[in-house]
C-alpha cells in the first residue's frame, strides 16, 4: 500500500502500550499522541548490523549477519574459552548491553533451531543441549520456521499453529498441501537436512584469545599479552606439526573499534622468538583508545612444518638458510615486499632488460654464461640522459661531450659495441621517442680526470641529421 506509513520497529516502552511493528503510523499515534517517530533507514541499519557482526568476531571467527536484525555465530569449538555455552551467551549479551544493544541469544545444534528460539522462544537466552531439539521447538509457533507469511497463514487455517503439531504428519501429505518449503525448513531445524552455512567466512585453523580483566592502555601491556598468545599458539602449531605463514592480531577496544596488525613469513615458522620480533615492530601501530578489552591472535595461513633437529647442546643446529629467511622476513615486514629483491641475469643484450628481479629467497637459478668480453658499467642510469657530443668522424667515439653543464674531454675510448633492438619483441624499449626502435652504438670513454663513462649514439650514422648521444652508465 503506497503512501501508508507503517511502523517497522518499536522499543519496549511503546510495545507495552500496544504498538507493534506492522501497525499503521496513524493508528500508533492514536494509541499514544506523544510518540517519538524516526524515519527508518534500512541501508544504514544493514551497515550497522554488518559492523556489529564484525565486532562479534571476538567470540568466534565464523560470524555473519543474518537477515535484518540477527547475527549468526558458529561457535563450534569456541565455547570452552568462555566456560560453557551458557557462559558464552551471557558474555555476548553483556558485551552488547555495554554497547547499548539489547539482544536475545539462542544456542542450538542447527541454524534453524537457533533462529527460531532466539526470536520466538521465551526468555532472553536459551541453550538447547545436544539431541533435545524436538522438545525445545515443539511449543514454538510455525512462524519460527522461517516461512513466508502466506505459508504461515495457510498452516494456521489448517489448524496447525505450533511446530510440534507438524511432527506426526506424513511428509507426503504436507508437501501436497503446502509445498516442499515447509518440510525442508522443518528438516533443517531438526537437523535432518543439511543447511550449508555458505555466507560464513572459512574458519581459520588456529586462534588464541585473551580477554583482559582490566582494559589495557600501554604498549608494554599489549606486548606481554601478545607474547602469551604467541606461546600458546606456537605450542598448538607444534602439536599439529604446522608452521604459520600469516598471523594477525585483533585488538578489541572498549568503544567498539577493532585495531588489527598482521605479519607474514616466507617459510612456515613456529619459532616464538622470530614471530615475536616481527610483531614487535608493529605494536606501536595499535591505538588503544580508551582501553583494549580483548586480544585475539589468529593463524590465518599455515603449512606443514617438520620438527627441527636439535643439536647436542639443546640448541637447534645452525641453519644458514633459516637465518637468511628470518632476516628477509624482518626486512619485508617492515619495508614491504617490493623493497627486497635478488637480481637474475636475463638473456637480453639491451642493458635495461639485462636484469630482472626475483624474490630474495627464490631458488638460485643456474648462472647464465657471462660473456667476459662485454664490458658493463657498475652503475646504470634508470633512463639514458641526452648529452651533447662532438664526434666528427662517423663510427668514432666522441672527442668531447657535455653532461649536466660540465664538459668532458675524451682521452681514451673503447667501442663501438652495437646493440640492436630486439625485433622479436613488440615493446622494445630502444627507440627514444622515434617511431621505430633504433640500434645503439655504445662507447666506453675516459675523460681527462680518469672518470669512465658509458655513452651511446642512438641510430645509425646519417650524414643529413645530427646524431643523438646519450649517457647510460658509469664504470669504476
Amino acid at each position: 500500500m503506497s503512501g501508508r506509513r507503517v511502523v517497522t520497529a518499536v522499543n519496549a516502552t511503546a510495545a507495552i502500550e500496544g504498538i507493534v511493528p506492522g501497525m499503521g503510523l496513524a493508528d500508533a499515534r492514536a494509541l499514544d499522541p506523544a510518540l517519538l517517530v524516526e524515519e527508518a533507514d534500512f541501508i544504514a541499519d544493514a551497515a550497522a548490523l554488518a559492523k556489529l557482526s564484525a565486532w562479534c568476531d571476538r567470540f568466534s571467527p565464523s560470524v555473519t549477519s543474518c537477515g535484518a536484525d540477527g547475527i549468526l555465530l558458529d561457535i563450534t569449538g569456541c565455547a570452552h574459552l568462555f566456560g560453557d555455552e551458557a557462559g558464552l551467551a551471557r558474555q555476548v549479551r553483556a558485551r552488547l548491553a555495554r554497547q547499548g544493544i539489547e539482544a536475545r541469544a539462542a544456542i542450538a545444534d542447527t541454524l534453524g533451531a537457533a533462529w527460531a528460539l532466539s526470536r520466538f522462544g521465551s526468555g532472553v537466552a536459551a541453550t538447547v543441549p545436544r539431541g533435545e531439539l524436538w522438545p525445545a521447538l515443539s511449543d514454538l509457533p510455525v512462524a519460527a520456521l522461517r516461512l513466508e507469511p502466506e505459508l504461515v497463514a495457510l498452516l494456521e487455517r489448517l489448524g496447525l499453529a505450533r511446530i510440534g503439531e507438524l511432527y506426526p504428519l506424513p511428509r507426503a501429505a504436507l508437501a501436497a498441501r503446502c509445498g516442499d518449503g515447509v518440510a525442508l525448513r522443518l528438516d533443517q531445524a531438526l537437523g535432518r537436512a543439511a543447511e550449508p552455512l555458505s555466507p560464513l567466512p572459512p574458519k581459520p585453523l588456529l586462534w588464541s584469545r585473551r580477554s583482559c580483566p582490566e582494559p589495557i592502555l600501554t604498549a608494554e601491556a599489549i606486548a606481554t599479552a601478545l607474547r602469551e598468545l604467541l606461546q600458546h599458539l606456537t605450542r598448538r602449531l607444534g602439536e599439529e606439526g604446522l608452521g604459520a605463514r600469516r598471523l594477525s592480531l585483533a585488538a578489541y577496544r572498549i568503544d567498539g573499534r577493532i585495531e588489527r596488525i598482521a605479519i607474514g613469513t616466507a617459510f612456515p615458522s613456529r619459532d616464538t622468538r622470530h614471530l615475536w620480533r616481527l610483531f614487535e615492530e608493529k605494536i606501536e601501530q595499535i591505538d588503544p583508545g580508551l582501553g583494549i578489552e580483548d586480544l585475539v591472535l589468529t593463524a590465518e595461513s599455515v603449512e606443514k612444518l617438520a620438527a627441527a633437529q636439535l643439536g647436542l647442546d639443546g640448541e637447534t643446529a645452525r641453519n644458514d638458510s633459516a637465518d637468511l629467511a628470518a632476516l628477509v622476513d624482518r626486512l619485508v615486514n617492515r619495508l614491504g615486499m617490493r623493497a627486497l629483491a635478488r637480481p637474475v641475469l636475463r638473456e637480453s643484450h639491451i642493458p635495461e632488460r639485462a636484469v630482472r628481479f626475483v624474490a630474495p629467497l627464490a631458488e638460485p637459478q643456474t648462472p647464465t654464461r657471462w660473456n667476459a668480453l662485454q664490458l658493463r658499467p657498475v652503475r646504470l642510469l634508470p633512463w639514458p640522459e641526452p648529452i651533447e657530443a662532438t664526434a666528427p668522424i662517423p663510427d668514432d667515439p666522441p672527442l668531447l661531450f657535455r653532461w649536466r653543464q660540465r664538459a668532458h674531454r675524451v682521452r681514451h675510448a673503447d667501442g663501438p659495441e652495437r646493440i640492436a633492438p630486439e625485433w622479436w619483441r613488440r615493446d622494445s624499449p630502444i627507440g627514444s621517442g622515434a617511431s621505430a626502435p633504433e640500434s645503439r652504438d655504445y662507447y666506453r670513454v675516459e675523460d681527462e680526470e680518469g672518470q669512465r663513462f658509458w655513452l651511446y649514439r642512438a641510430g645509425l650514422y646519417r650524414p643529413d641529421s645530427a646524431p643523438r648521444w646519450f649517457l647510460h652508465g658509469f664504470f669504476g
Partner: protein
Amino acid sequence: MEQIKNMGEAADTARQERLADLRRYLAEAEGFGQAAAVLPFGAPAIDAALPWQGLPLAGLHEIENAGPAEEGGAAETFLAGILARLAPARPVLWCLRRADLHAPGLALIGLEPRRLVLLRASHERDILWAMEEGLRSRALAAVVGEIEALSTAASRRLQLAAESAGVTGFVLHRSAGSAAASAAVTRWRVAALPSVPVAREPGIGRPRWRVELLRCRGGMPAAWDVEACDATGIVAVSAALADRPALRQISAAG
C-alpha cells in the same frame, strides 16, 4: 767480538719479541685479537700498511667516492672487489637509495649477482635499520649501505652490530662526504685516475685509482696509486707512491 755480536743479536731478538707482544696486546685492547678474521688485499703494499695485514672482518668500514655526487663508480668497484673475495658462499645485503646498481658490471669483478640481495629504501633511517638487522644476522657475508651522512652515534651502533656476529659492514658514500667523527675501523676514499694504455693499443687500458686510507684504527693514513680490480677482485699497486708526505700533514691536522 763474536760474543758481543751474539749478545747484540740476542738483545735485538728479545726487543723484537717484546715489540710483537706489545703490538698483540694493543690489538687485543683495540678489540681485534689474534683470532680476528682478516681479508688480505693481496697487494703487499696495502696489507703492510694495515695493522692486521688485511681488512678486519668483524667491523665497520667506510668507503667514499672522490668525484662529484652521483657520478662515477670507483668506490663501488673497489668494494665489489673486496666482496668478491669475502666469504664467497654467503650472500651480501646491499641497501640502496636508488635502484641504479647494475649487476652485470659487478659480475665482471667477481661478485656474482646471485649473491646479492638488494634492498631499496627511500629513507636513510630505514637503511640504517636494515644494516643493523643484517649485521646481526650471521647468514650474510657482508652488509653494504649507501648513506650520505653517517652520524657518530649511528656509526657506533653499526660497529657494535658488526662485532657481534662477525658480519662485515660497509658504508658507501657516493660523494665525498662529511668528515664526521666515526666509529668505523677504516675509512677509504677512491678516486679515478687516467688509465695506463696497454702495449700501445688504442682505447682504455687497465683502469687506475688513487686509493686513500683516510683513517685507520691503530694505523697511519696512507695512499696508493693502484690498478683497478681484475676479474677476481684484486688490485695491484703499480707505483711506489705510498705514504706521501703531503697526506701526512693533512692527517696530522685533522
